[in-house]
């Protein structure tokens, strides 16, 4: 069973909301990626989205753009990132890893080659921002190798498309909470809740994670009212940006992510009671 499916099954039976942090691989420091990933898990991450930096991140706001630029300036590339996942897997066999990024690095690496290598090191899924459902034949080798292809749904996604997305989705569906780039501050809960309800009506068993605009414990708890998981990206990346030595990175993760975890768990406990 894919670790992503396993994890969402566990969350469901425990009545907990999943917490999915996003970090750009190699930022703030390529030397501390693996300790950072372990720190994310210790602070309560249920799944890690590891950003593969790209030179032209069209869907990202300034925070993740700059993180990508910093990582690229330090020579971070796909082979190195796969190496980090492998190293992480030596100690952590259970936390699912999703690589998130853009197509070109994988296209140039070779889809079949990437798929084999990613599965071998313990990657569980990919979220390729510029590969929508219509072009998903492009990444068929990844699915064939057992990687989940995580699709996005957005406020501009109409019902017919939403139905097609839920049919093709694997792992979970990532609902983008507003039309915009990552890190913007435009979260308006009511329409998000309505669209997540529409997804749930179409595919009751498909986990839905909500991301974009989740900045802290309060916004995470608000999303947890109707989503299976929340994704925190830009706010975390920003928090990490100035923490270079390993201890500072670990501390920054705990300071930032642990309170979100506690708030989510407190909400789940209230809900159960």
């Amino acid at each position, binding site marked *: 069973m894919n670790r992503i499916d396993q994890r969402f099954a566990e969350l469901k039976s425990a009545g907990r909301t999943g917490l999915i942090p996003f970090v750009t691989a190699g930022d703030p420091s390529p030397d501390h990626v693996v300790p950072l990933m372990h720190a994310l898990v210790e602070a309560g991450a249920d799944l890690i989205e590891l950003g593969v930096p790209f030179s032209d991140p069209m869907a990202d706001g300034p925070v993740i753009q700059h993180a990508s630029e910093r990582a690229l300036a330090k020579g971070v590339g796909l082979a190195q990132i796969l190496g980090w996942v492998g190293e992480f897997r030596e100690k952590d066999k259970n936390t699912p890893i999703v690589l998130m990024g853009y197509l070109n690095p994988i296209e140039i690496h070779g889809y079949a080659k990437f798929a084999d290598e990613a599965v071998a090191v313990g990657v569980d899924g990919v979220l390729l921002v510029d590969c929508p459902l219509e072009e998903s034949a492009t990444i068929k080798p990844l699915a064939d190798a057992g990687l989940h292809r995580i699709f996005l749904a*957005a406020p501009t996604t109409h019902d017919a498309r939403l139905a097609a997305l839920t049919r093709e989705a694997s792992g979970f569906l990532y609902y983008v909470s507003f*039309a915009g780039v990552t890190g913007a501050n435009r979260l308006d809960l009511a329409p998000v809740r309505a669209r997540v309800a529409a997804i749930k009506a179409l595919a009751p068993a498909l986990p839905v994670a909500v991301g974009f605009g989740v900045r802290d414990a309060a916004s995470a708890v608000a999303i947890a009212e109707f989503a299976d998981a929340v994704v925190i990206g830009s706010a975390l990346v920003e928090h990490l940006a100035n923490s270079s030595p390993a201890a500072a990175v670990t501390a920054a993760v705990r300071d930032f992510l642990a309170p979100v975890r506690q708030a989510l768990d407190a909400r789940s406990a209230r809900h159960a009671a």
Partner: protein
Amino acid sequence: MLAKPFDTAAAAAAIPAAASAADSINYSNYPDEHGRFGDYGGLYVAETLMEPLAELRDAYLRLRRDPEFIAELDRDLKHYVGRPSPIYHAERLSKKIGGAQILFKREDLNHTGAHKINNTVGQALVAKRMGKRRIIAETGAGQHGVASATVATRLGLECVVYMGAVDIERQKINVYRMKLLGAEVVPVTSGSKTLKDALNEAMRDWVTNVTDTFYIIGTVAGPHPYPMMVRDFNAIVGREARAQMLEEYGRLPDVITACVGGGSNAIGLFHAFLNDREVKIVGAEAAGDGIETGRHAASLAAGRPGVLHGNRTYVICDDDGQITETHSISAGLDYPGVGPEHAWLKDTGRASYVGITDEEALAAFHELARSEGILAALESSHAVAQGIKLARELPKDQLVLVNLSGRGDKDVHTIAAREGISL
């Protein structure tokens, strides 16, 4: 014995013949319904843009069959843009070169000084019909920005133009022109601070403001339907040229050439000739300091298939798939991708693509200025250089048609600075 002024056998060999794969293709039938030209093109964008792009595609496919829309576009092209643009026989230049006759399709004579207006007039009319109130655009040399600002202000639409900070520096005149036309010019400081980054930033604006904003892409790249739509609006260049050739010269040209950055003026000229197998087609890319130096922007000549800016095409990137910085003296050609239709024409062999260096383009700029009294844009000077090369190898009775896509007024500061002259 007098040396032969030309050697027809060698000249024929110098130009690649159409490959057999190209012979069975009807080029009018592309892209297919998925926006593909062979393996290239498509729709590689974030989910948020998928429905808006579908709406744009449907609106455009409807409008291009709508007689009222077509009539309005024709009126604008005639009375506002100043079409048709003439074909000019550069007799003095041809005589100096001593080979084939060089003809120029004078897109530099259009309103705002380049072919770019053909597309922006068309897209602005689409925007108006779709009820959008705000126009955004990216620009490299500034010609597309000026052309977008021009049509936006004429229709009373707000206009924001994204431009790389490096390009703002080298195209100051066009930046000021855009401001005079009421547009807001937003400097882009991410990445290489040139055209590709301006395109990224415009996409980010569009994804954020997609309900009321129309994105006028300036080249034949981007997600479907842009490569098709921008081509269609520029294809007036080739349709006119083809008819003018038949009327004024009684035959089609032997070779046609144009500069290729994203490739909009080139596809504009080429498209009407694609099914005329006897017409050779050559695109001139920016070889910058020389392809062997790595400092160039020749995606087709020196790049590889990849995915950038919403389409699969040839891109210039490293072995990790990161898009690398390009170089050209001409901001409008300084782009690491190229329109997907060109990628396909290269692979089918219907067109060939060659590099022209900064030095060759500058030499052609001066040659044209002094022999014909025309200041060509630096972008177009690459096509002029290629036209001269082709003419030199061909007999005097052959015709080389060059797309003179824009005028050089915007470049005089760059050229002066390069030659150590302060104005």
